[in-house]
């Protein structure tokens, strides 16, 4: 039989019998217009069914993972939530990436598995709510299926590692029970979930479920997928997003054997950025990548700049600095607690500083690419996307196909960091595929990838703190200028700040008089979501500034931070929720204790700290550096995090260590600069991710065991790494770095 159990108003658990005696439990949302997938179709058509558990007769448990895996470990963690709840044997679990779940609802798309998104930091919180129910139902059914064979009532049966076990020790494997379980009548109401003391997998370490395939080179990214007889397209984009093609001679390219076509692409000005071609471009389509690259080299191209041809990142920064130093009204006053102006009159001490942070690229290791097979009634795509639904929207608009005629497959992704929430490259791939009668792979070379991105804007932060006689920060005045990542994306002007600064960020709510102003800059450079924003730029500025306050007060920055945080209490957040200062204090103390903060004053090396909170999670870094001449060495990096319940400690530790290193690498070396409207960095040589030697040899990760629902962790450790580093550098060198990238500025100031 098949049936459904209601999970919430719109979501249902669904049970089906598969071929060859399999039990299948999935989650579907209501209003699916398409008929249920016939059970006997399910043997091979895994992609056709929802986020699911499938127990095969041989005991293998297949778990589908709905969210794209960009390397955050989400596929492993989601699967372990289900596997734990059903007491599966992890050794017999296989995790499969699910494609986009879409059905046709009178021609409109109906998303079968709810939101599917990766690298946005909320996979875990969303999954926690409903994945356990799927596991619990599978377990409930398997136990009932065992009753007739074991001759014991269900309440006397227990489950362990893929077996249902009777009091005397007699046991039946899940595989043997799967077929019968699929025929069991469904429970009348909702099921009780495990209590934490019964967790076997949640909270225990596990490596990436795909690790073996990765180290043997078997994991296929979109770039590694093949359709038969596929053409390859490489592009030359206009250096200016608003420029145009003024001359094209493709004869030499077309004369190369194997070059099939040369096609011009243009952005559609009526579409939002990220849904159309990013800049005018010429594509060379050829029989293979090597021929296409030679074809591109043989093109004779002339581009004409648009209005952005005069833009420069240096001029934009000057404009930003002038704005925040002027009396001009801010674009948005985010927050104005107390009375800043009155507080200024009580000043015992005033501290001021300005911080400059550069533009950044996403620089995913796997460049933008997309594999498409198009015909009149279907489109099949392998897309490295963090938002399969958004990719679908782009494909649908360009093909006019019905919702379920579009098959978006999302293999493992070689890094996302927010770049793959935009789908310009999918639009390009589909437009080009329409011009040929074979499948087509769009492939961006590294230079195209670095020079045509949705960048993170550079920004300037200005702070003023008023300190009263007892060293309390009485007032905090903050002015931030940047070009919003949301501009041109249909977001109202009075909300453009939200990608740039948070209304609740530290120390808002900790200081009686607090003002936060944001000034919007206009820029033609494409901009978009970027990993860790808006926290990463703000934490660098805020936590550096607190260190400067400490220096001004001639005291240990740990003391200054703890005084600013104050007593353990809950500080309400605008828009809901509260910051638990006890948890913030805890991570700060854990990190500083571990690094040996008591030596702060006397250590030959420099010690630096920073703490932050976001979305219910808390983080602190403590970093130790040494300097010999101009050589900076990061001797130690400690990171303490509190994310509530930890699903996979090994995965979390990897995420925290990884984010720490990524943030350090970025802070040390990276900047995108624009001159005459053109991005000046086009290879790893001039966008140099940190080498092994520049990075610390270990990252000591401390995770606070928690009971609360899990918070997202994929970029939690990013914001505090850079300010802890800069603060440590100040301690060892007496040079205050207020401009990133740090190495360039440090060498300039030394």
């Amino acid at each position, binding site marked *: 039989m098949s049936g459904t159990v209601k999970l919430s108003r719109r979501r249902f658990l669904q049970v089906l019998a598969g071929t060859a005696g399999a039990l299948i439990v999935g989650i579907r949302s209501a209003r699916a217009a398409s008929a249920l997938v016939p059970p006997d179709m399910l043997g091979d058509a895994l992609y056709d069914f929802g986020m699911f558990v499938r127990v095969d007769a041989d005991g293998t448990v297949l778990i589908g993972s709905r969210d794209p895996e960009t*390397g955050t470990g989400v596929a492993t963690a989601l699967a372990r939530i289900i596997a734990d709840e059903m007491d599966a044997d992890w050794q017999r679990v296989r995790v499969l990436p699910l494609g986009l779940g879409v059905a046709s609802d009178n021609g409109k798309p109906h998303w079968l598995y709810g939101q599917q998104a990766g690298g946005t930091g909320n996979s875990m919180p969303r999954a926690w709510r409903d994945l356990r129910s799927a596991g619990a139902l599978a377990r409930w059914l398997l136990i009932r299926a065992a009753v007739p064979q074991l001759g014991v009532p269900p309440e006397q049966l227990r489950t362990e590692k893929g077996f249902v076990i009777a009091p005397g020790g007699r046991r039946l494997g899940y595989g043997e029970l799967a077929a019968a379980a699929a025929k069991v009548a469904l429970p009348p109401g909702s099921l009780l979930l495990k209590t934490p003391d019964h967790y076997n997998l949640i909270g225990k370490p596990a490596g990436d479920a795909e*690790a*073996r395939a990765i*180290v*043997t080179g078997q994991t296929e990214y979109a770039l590694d997928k093949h359709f038969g007889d596929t053409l390859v397209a490489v592009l030359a984009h206009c250096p200016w997003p608003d420029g145009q093609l003024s001359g094209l001679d493709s004869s030499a390219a077309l004369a190369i054997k194997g070059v099939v076509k040369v096609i011009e692409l243009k952005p559609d000005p009526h579409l939002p950025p990220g849904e159309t071609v990013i800049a005018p471009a010429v594509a060379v389509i050829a029989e293979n990548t090597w021929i296409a690259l030679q074809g591109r080299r043989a093109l004779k191209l002339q581009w004409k700049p648009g209005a952005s041809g005069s833009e420069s990142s240096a001029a934009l920064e000057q404009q930003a600095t002038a704005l925040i130093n002027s009396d001009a009204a801010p674009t948005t006053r985010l927050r104005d607690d107390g009375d800043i102006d009155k507080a200024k009159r009580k000043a015992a001490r005033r501290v001021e500083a300005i911080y400059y942070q550069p533009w950044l690229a996403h620089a995913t290791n796997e460049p933008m690419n997309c594999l498409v097979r198009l015909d009149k009634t279907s489109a099949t795509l392998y897309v490295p996307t963090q938002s399969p639904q958004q990719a679908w929207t782009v494909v649908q608009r360009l093909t006019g196909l019905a919702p379920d005629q579009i098959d978006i497959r999302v293999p493992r992704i070689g890094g996302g960091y927010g770049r793959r929430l935009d789908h310009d490259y999918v639009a390009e791939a589909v437009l080009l595929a329409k011009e040929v009668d074979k499948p087509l792979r769009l492939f961006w070379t590294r*230079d195209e990838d670095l020079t045509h991105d949705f960048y993170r804007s550079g920004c300037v932060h200005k702070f003023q703190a008023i300190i009263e006689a007892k060293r309390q920060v009485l007032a905090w005045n903050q002015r931030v200028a940047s070009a919003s990542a949301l501009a041109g994306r249909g977001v109202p002007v009075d909300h453009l700040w939200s990608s740039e600064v948070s209304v609740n960020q530290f120390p808002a709510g900790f200081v009686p008089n607090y003002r936060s102003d944001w000034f919007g800059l206009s820029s033609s450079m494409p901009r978009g979501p970027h990993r860790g924003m808006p926290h990463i730029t703000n934490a660098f500025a805020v936590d550096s500034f607190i260190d400067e306050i400490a220096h001004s007060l001639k005291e240990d920055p740990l003391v200054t931070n703890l005084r600013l945080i104050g007593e353990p209490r809950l500080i309400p957040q605008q828009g809901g929720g509260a910051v638990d200062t006890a948890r913030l204090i805890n991570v700060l103390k854990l990190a500083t204790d571990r690094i040996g903060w008591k030596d702060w004053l006397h250590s030959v090396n420099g010690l630096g700290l920073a703490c932050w909170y976001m979305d219910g999670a808390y983080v602190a870094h403590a970093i130790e550096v040494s300097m010999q001449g101009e050589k900076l060495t990061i001797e130690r990096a400690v990171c303490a995090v509190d994310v509530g319940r930890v699903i996979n400690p090994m*995965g979390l530790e990897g995420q925290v260590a*990884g984010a720490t290193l990524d943030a350090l690498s970025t802070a040390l070396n990276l900047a995108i600069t624009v001159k005459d409207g053109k991005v000046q960095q086009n290879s*790893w040589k001039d966008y140099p*991710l940190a080498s092994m030697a520049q990075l610390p040899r270990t990252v000591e990760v401390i995770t606070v065991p928690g009971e609360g629902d899990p918070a997202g962790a994929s970029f939690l450790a990013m914001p505090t790494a850079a300010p802890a580093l800069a603060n440590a550098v100040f301690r060892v060198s007496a040079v205050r770095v207020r401009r990133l990238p740090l190495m360039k500025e440090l060498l300039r100031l030394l």
Partner: protein
Amino acid sequence: MAQDHAALPAKPTEITPTPVRAGIDLQINGERYRHTGDPAMPLLWYLRDVLQLDGTKYGGEHGDGGADLVLVNGKATSAINTPMSKLAGKQVITVEGLADARGNGNLHPLQQAFIDEDAIGCGYCTPGWLIASMELLNRNKDPSDNDIDGLPNLCRCGCQTRVRQAIKRAAAAMKQGTKA
């Protein structure tokens, strides 16, 4: 188990006799291949487009970043910077050949160490790290931190500290294996 992990396979391969056509003969992961196309084609595109052996990744046009490393006669080499014309008579090992290189399909201790240390972020750069680390271990049975610092690979997910641990773990395991 006295086995030298550095040893490359000398697996006999049967070649079906075909009409002789001029080309470049080479071995990839112990199998013999004849490339009859453009001798200027970089090895990376031969592996990926012609053989669909996709473990070796594209990192950039200049081969910097190390995603495209393979072993050519035991030396870590950028596949995008190596035209097929330079590979006549050479033995190429890609990430797909690391396990098979021992002849039994088992993982090499280095691969096992990457799994045990979870030295993987998105995994895209992992094949390149494995190849560079393999060359290092073949040269140096007991690499120091400074030796490991010399690896040319780049990673945005931040797997460097875990790769360092994995190399040390593999070195220890390989020493153990040689003694036993």
